[in-house]
């Protein structure tokens, strides 16, 4: 029953969602079910937090070599939960807002002054890595690689204002490459991936796909 019950629930709810798209009179039921889904998703967020806490507490208790980082993670997580959720919004000490998540609160300050710059920094690595990847990979080793390199150069010039300064037709050529051959390939891959996703969805609601409960 441990596997059968989740499968039955999945099949039933899957059918309601699919039928809702084609039979409007079922939409009331489908809406109720989606409300339940939102409740479950909210609970699973808490489950995610509990899992993170469990795994890191386990590292600390076992004296794992990453234990100091686990402690940092747990302290940071607890701090943000306390500041954002538990501390009342009215908690203002010395003109400084300790509670709440609105602009000016400590939660907001930590978010904007620590989290935002750190995320932006990691994201900006991509610019440098693209340069090194391009230098290494865009070599004219074969006809296909040559087409890749030439197309990449045209697109890169065409997408920025400097392209139109170099040649009037550059933005147009770049747009043609983006809108014709690139779009054709993108559409084909999109259709293929979509068929794969639809196939998996149909197998789930037909009860043929059961890997999500542990496979067999």
């Amino acid at each position, binding site marked *: 029953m441990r596997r059968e019950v989740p499968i039955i629930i999945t099949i039933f709810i899957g059918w309601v969602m699919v039928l809702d*798209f084609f039979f409007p009179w079922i939409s009331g039921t489908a809406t109720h079910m989606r409300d339940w889904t939102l409740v479950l998703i909210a609970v699973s967020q808490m489950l995610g937090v509990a899992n*993170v806490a469990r795994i890191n507490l386990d590292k600390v208790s076992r004296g794992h070599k990453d234990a100091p980082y686990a402690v940092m993670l747990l302290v940071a997580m607890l701090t943000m939960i306390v500041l954002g959720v538990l501390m009342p919004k009215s908690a203002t000490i010395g003109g400084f807002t300790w509670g709440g998540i609105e602009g000016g609160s400590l939660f907001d300050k930590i978010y904007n002054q620590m989290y935002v710059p750190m995320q932006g920094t*990691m994201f900006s690595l991509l610019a440098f890595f693209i340069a090194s*990847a391009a230098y290494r990979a865009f070599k004219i080793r074969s006809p296909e690689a040559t087409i890749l390199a030439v197309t990449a150069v045209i697109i890169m010039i065409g997408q920025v204002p400097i392209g139109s300064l170099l040649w009037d037709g550059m933005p147009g050529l770049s747009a043609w490459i983006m809108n014709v051959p690139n779009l054709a390939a993108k559409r084909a891959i999109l259709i293929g991936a979509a068929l*794969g996703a639809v196939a998996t969805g149909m197998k789930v609601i037909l009860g043929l796909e059961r*890997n999500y409960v542990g496979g067999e």
Partner: protein
Amino acid sequence: MADRANARTGTGIAGSLAGAFAALLIALPALAQEAAPAAAAPAAPVQFFSSERLNILIPIVIFTLLILYFIQQAKQGKSLFIRNIPGLDAIEEAIGRCTEMGRPILYVPGIDDATNIQTIYSMIILNHVAKRVAQYDTPLIVPVGKAIVTPLAEEAVKSGYTAAGRPDAYNPNNIRFMSDEQFAFTAAVNGIMNREKPAANIYLGSFFAESLVLAETGIMTGAIQIAGTANIHQLPFFVVACDYALVGEEFYAATAYLSREPGLVGTLKATDVMKVVLMLTIIIGVLLEQFGFHGFTAWMQPK
């Protein structure tokens, strides 16, 4: 075994049809309840069937029938051809390289949750990789980016080792939950690559902006790299930075190719046939448009 598989298919389909019927039955009282309060003010009649969505229903029905047909064919033992996927053959080469060099193999199953089908398929491939590495005692490191995926990865690796007859070789410390946060996870995996210097990196699953950061770091450490994702916006980065890339559906096909499970192989064939159907539809549509018949295109528009 075929009979049991057939029985499973039959049970699955019968069960799902029963589920559909039950869904419709349960909807009826809900409809009555909603209609009752509105009795005072007459509401617009609720349409029974959205006929304007027939253009979506028909292909879905055709596709579903194809899936059922080809799964049945596969279960009856009919040989369904799957072309060679170089990226998957390279996994064997990668395992061999790691064994010769005495270095671990790194398998990153994406950064998305277990709700994403790519993560599920990645677990199937991970199970296959675990079976192979178990035979050679090659360490297999699996960094995981979502807490809920961790037990799935542990199960996949453990069952792979057990199936290969080497349950003793399974090391739970090699399945490492790093962080739920995208770039924290990326930084952690980069750290593993730089410190433990795996000889092969396999990226199979759902990846986002971190794909190039991971792949470039892997190149810096000199590892052979195999990647596959259905997130098409990340494919260019993997194609450029990895030795082998499974493009879009090849990733879905990988599970069928490796496991040869009838359900997966049959689905793959059905997808291929459906693509032919769609291609013919496009050609017919283009020809009709060329000759001034716009009805077909208008009917195919989403409403």
